[in-house]
């Protein structure tokens, strides 16, 4: 197992390299002189020259890239132009809200979507199946911010049950933390639930037609046992795959959701950075999210082996 993880981790190095190259190019492909961009709008020509010299921006691009990579490896992502703080510190400060939002969304979505998908497959082509699938189409079609504003309007403004804005760290208590995250998670989870439910249904339908399901029924396994033990474990691999791929959706969704619900996470950090053309922050956050995504896919691959003993790496 350990050697598998190590091998897979090594395999992520080239992937991260390509991502890093892309992120690095971001600055140099943008129109205008990198030094002028990095120095900000109020800088004098002398400031620009000093920065160019300090960052080595007059050197050949490959050299610059290698130097930049070397700093990144040492977790030095540069300094924010706007705040003057190290980008690494900025990211670490914003981790908790974003990971809380993503984690809660993930949990809530899987716990809702998988049973819905199983129900739809078991009741295929009946009213409940069609209702669930129609809901899924709706989930795909309505953008996160629309869902977010509707939820905030109903549950916060009209009913006053939950706060519409803001974030409370978990160290101030579990319930305040959860209260603030319920609406954002629901909004963000909407499309995710639709996606997972559809894939669960399709995968379950295929499995339910297999011979071993007939065997389980002939043994006298209850309906719930057939669906959730015999069928679901076989149907799990595509579902886990889509959950992993869907993390990309969560990342882009988190950016929008945090803005709608004013959560001080990585999403708002990157939105602010884009508006201020704070390139080091943009680069840092993109690089960080890519790394998280690659890591999630590694975890997904490992989870496969739990569900299907025939998969070996």
């Amino acid at each position, binding site marked *: 197992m350990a050697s598998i993880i190590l091998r897979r981790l090594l395999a992520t190095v080239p992937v991260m390299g390509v991502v890093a190259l892309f992120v690095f190019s971001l600055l140099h492909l943008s129109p205008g002189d990198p030094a002028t961009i990095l120095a900000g709008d109020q800088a004098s020509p002398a400031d620009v020259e000093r920065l160019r010299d300090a960052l080595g921006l007059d050197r050949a691009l490959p050299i610059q890239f290698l130097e930049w990579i070397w700093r990144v490896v040492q977790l030095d992502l540069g300094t924010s132009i706007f705040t003057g703080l190290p980008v690494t510190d900025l990211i670490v400060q914003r981790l908790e809200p974003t990971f809380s939002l993503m984690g809660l969304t993930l949990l809530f979505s899987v716990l809702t979507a998988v049973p819905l998908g199983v129900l739809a497959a078991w009741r295929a082509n009946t009213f409940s199946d069609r209702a669930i699938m129609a809901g899924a189409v709706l989930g795909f079609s309505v953008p996160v911010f629309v869902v977010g504003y509707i939820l905030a309007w109903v549950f916060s403004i009209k009913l006053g049950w939950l706060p519409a804005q803001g974030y409370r760290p978990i160290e101030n208590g579990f319930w305040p933390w959860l209260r603030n995250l319920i609406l954002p998670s629901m909004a963000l989870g909407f499309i995710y639930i639709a996606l997972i439910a559809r894939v669960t249904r399709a995968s379950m339908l295929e499995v339910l037609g297999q*011979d071993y399901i007939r065997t389980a029924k002939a043994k006298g396994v*209850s309906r719930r046992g057939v669906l959730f033990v015999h069928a679901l*474990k076989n149907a799990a691999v595509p579902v886990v795959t889509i959950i992993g791929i869907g993390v990309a959706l969560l990342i882009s969704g988190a950016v929008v959701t945090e803005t709608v619900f004013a959560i001080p996470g990585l999403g708002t950090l990157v939105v602010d950075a884009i508006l201020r053309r704070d390139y080091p922050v943009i680069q840092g956050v993109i690089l960080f999210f890519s790394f998280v995504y690659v890591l999630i896919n590694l975890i997904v691959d490992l989870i496969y082996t739990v569900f299907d003993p025939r998969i070996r790496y």
Partner: protein
Amino acid sequence: MTSPILNVENLKVAFNVGDDRWRQIVHGISFNVREKETVAIVGESGSGKSVSAMALMRLLPEQSTRVSGSVRLADKELLTLHEEQMRRVRGDDIAMIFQEPMTSLNPVFTVGFQLVEAIRLHRDISRADARMEAKKLLEKVRISDADTRLDDYPDAFSGGMRQRVMIAMALACNPKVLIADEPTTALDVTIQAEILDLIRTLQDEERLAVLFITHDMGVVAQIADRTLVMYEGNIVEQGPTERLFRSAEHPYTRALLAAVPRLGESAGHTRPMRFPVVDIETGKVDSPGESPDTVDDGRTVLEVVDLTTRYPITSGVFNRVILNVHAVEKISFTLKAGETLALVGESGCGKSTTGRSILRLTQPTSGSVIVNGNDIVSLGPKQLREARRDMQMVFQDPFASLNPRHTLGDAIKEPLYAHGFKKGASDRVADLLTRVGLTPDMSRRYPHELSGGQRQRVCIARALALEPKLIVADEPVAALDASIKAKVVNLMLDLQASMQLAYLFISHDMAVVERISHRVAVMYLGEIVEIGPRSAVFGNPQHPYTKKLLSAVPEADPSTRSKKRSLSTSTELKSPFRSVDYRPPARTYRTVSKGHQVQEWGEEWNKEFYCM
């Protein structure tokens, strides 16, 4: 006589075929099964035999099927039982095993989990006790190392072993009735014999009533006390098995029996024998004849010399070769125009790989395959294409080997177009369809509109399109019902007579082989262990493996049943996996009579034979 344990009366099943239309599949059948009795339901695909079994277990989907009549288990009426109570009947009172051992076990749970589950569903015992019980069950079905095998997943078991596990699972709660739906159809003959023996022995031990569903009259003769013959959803005849085989009354039963290949029927003949064909309406039998002499001794169509095909098994980051599969190992034979050589053996023996290697669909490792003076093994791509005009292939599965989106005409034209014969292709298709017993107007139809037998005829027509000299037929009739099988074999014999075709007929079915072949080669672990004229190999088998194969064929005669074999754990094929530095032993062949050669066998065979 004991009273019936399972009583089925006027059972009817209808399927919903869209909107509110229902098609009647089973038209009110009645029968019963007694304690310790085996009742066989026999019939061809679509006769409703499996549907009836599923109906009495209430395993058909409720929304799309209608079941009526009465199914009584002792005093309990099953058809009106509440679903939860019916669930308790399944696996506890009535257990079931199925045709497909490869897919009937859940691949993501260990065998132990599945056995323990079956036990604990109906019995209130602890997990640890259930595991002990599961171990005993595996021992009961003669699986060795039961304790460690419990922790294996199904993919670590072969087909025969999986069927044993299925049987163990079925016996988990000491059921009163066992329903076996074609339990041996997907297995090799020697494994089939073992499983049938096992079911018979366990039936005695457990006082089971067995309902045995099959299409194979040979199996019926070996296992059933009473037999019901089903045809298009009706029981057309029933009675004691011996009586049925001796004097069947219904024309359909007679047709079914006539189509059963029996070993030894061709004794005294040297040429292939047509199957007798019975008219289902009138019951008249046309007399089978020996086919005309088609072999042209002067023309060798195919010469195979020391053909060897191995597959490397790789592992690790650098794809290092760790093992070689010796699929085909130094085999040699020749085939004359108009001659049929049958290649027989069990799954995994390399007979299909041999066929594919000859056409170079699989690249051979060494050796030569000479067709028309060209060595196929070393031809360039362009010449290979040319050479393939003379040799065509017919595959086992007529469902999978026709493209569902091409019309039959397109399928047959394909080889013509591929070799540039565009002109007159449509006329050629019409002619070919007629030759294989279909009509020219079928060229516009799609494969799903045809039955299995008709599809196989189309596959044969496609193979004939380029007027080949050699046809490699890989299990061409294995997937077909007995009566259809007989017709397709007869068709192949007719085509051989009119076109002087040479057949390499790959099959595991000894009885079919006996009818169709001039010569027979027996393969074991990639090697030919015995080859010779059919009458010599069948009449005077030499190699222990040939003898074993022949003795395992179920005889379609209930009176031969008593000879019981001891239940060996398993006599499945040994593995053809060899280490990289393995050198195959040098083999010598002994000539028995003219053209009949047998490989000299080692000590291990004498021991093995002794166990049987």
